[in-house]
């Protein structure tokens, strides 16, 4: 069902998405939006793995399983990060990284 779309289109798409995530990570000051940028980066890597598996190595499912495992790691990472963010909010009443500048009260 992929028609005649070359592999390069998928790679260009994921490259632009990856660097958009990097841009967000560099410019955002809010912890949750930084986490969203990380999710964008992980998602672009997933597209890369899936495209490589589908176009170059259809004889086994390595990229597919890599993607499954990355999704699981991303879920675990988001859960732990949000727990930490809520704890930071409880202590500092803010989740802007500029205001969180102490390790301990």
């Amino acid at each position, binding site marked *: 069902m992929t028609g005649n779309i070359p592999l390069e289109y998928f790679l260009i798409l994921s490259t632009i998405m990856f660097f958009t995530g990097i841009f967000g990570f560099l410019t955002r000051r809010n912890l949750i*939006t930084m986490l969203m940028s990380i999710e964008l980066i992980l998602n672009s890597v997933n597209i890369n793995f899936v495209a490589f598996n589908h176009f170059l190595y259809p004889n086994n499912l390595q990229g597919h399983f890599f993607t499954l495992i990355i999704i699981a790691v991303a*879920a*675990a990472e988001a859960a732990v990060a949000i727990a930490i963010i809520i704890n930071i*909010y409880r202590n500092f009443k803010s989740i802007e990284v500029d205001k969180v500048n102490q390790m301990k009260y």
Partner: protein
Amino acid sequence: MDSNILFFLLAGTILLFSVLTVTTRRILRAAVYLLFVLVSTAGLYFMLNYNFLAAVQLTVYAGGIVVLMIFSILLTSHISEKAKLAGMKQSLLSALTVVAGAILTIILLMNHQFTASSEPAVSPDVQNIGRHLVSYGENGYALPFEVISILLLAAMIGSIIVARKESLAANVKPTDENPEK
């Protein structure tokens, strides 16, 4: 021919909404734009016939992570609050870095010659996936599967301990300090 149109539609949605995710000033809107990006990615997986992967993407990312993020946004900030943007100099330098990196990567991958494997393809249906996921021979993924299950357990316990209130620990402490007394 129509699958080409579908690809460009999905790619355009992904690019547009990922740029909006990192540039919008309202945090809740950023989460909703991220949801659009993730759903369009699931559409790409459907297009490549990875149905199980697309289902996992929809349930875990769109159903789990984004909802978790929206919850935490509502817990930690007001809906009408607008996020502060970075300074002009910092945004400019970041944009420069990012554009240079993207151009470099795209030039490199356009000049690289990819060679596809000619062996017969394996169909990514649920039966094959399940068989590979719990076998330990060649092309078996039993070890990563078990490692992931332990990671998820550790993340669950860890996030409960990190996010709970301090008073719970304080209540337990004084009673068993000195059992002899």
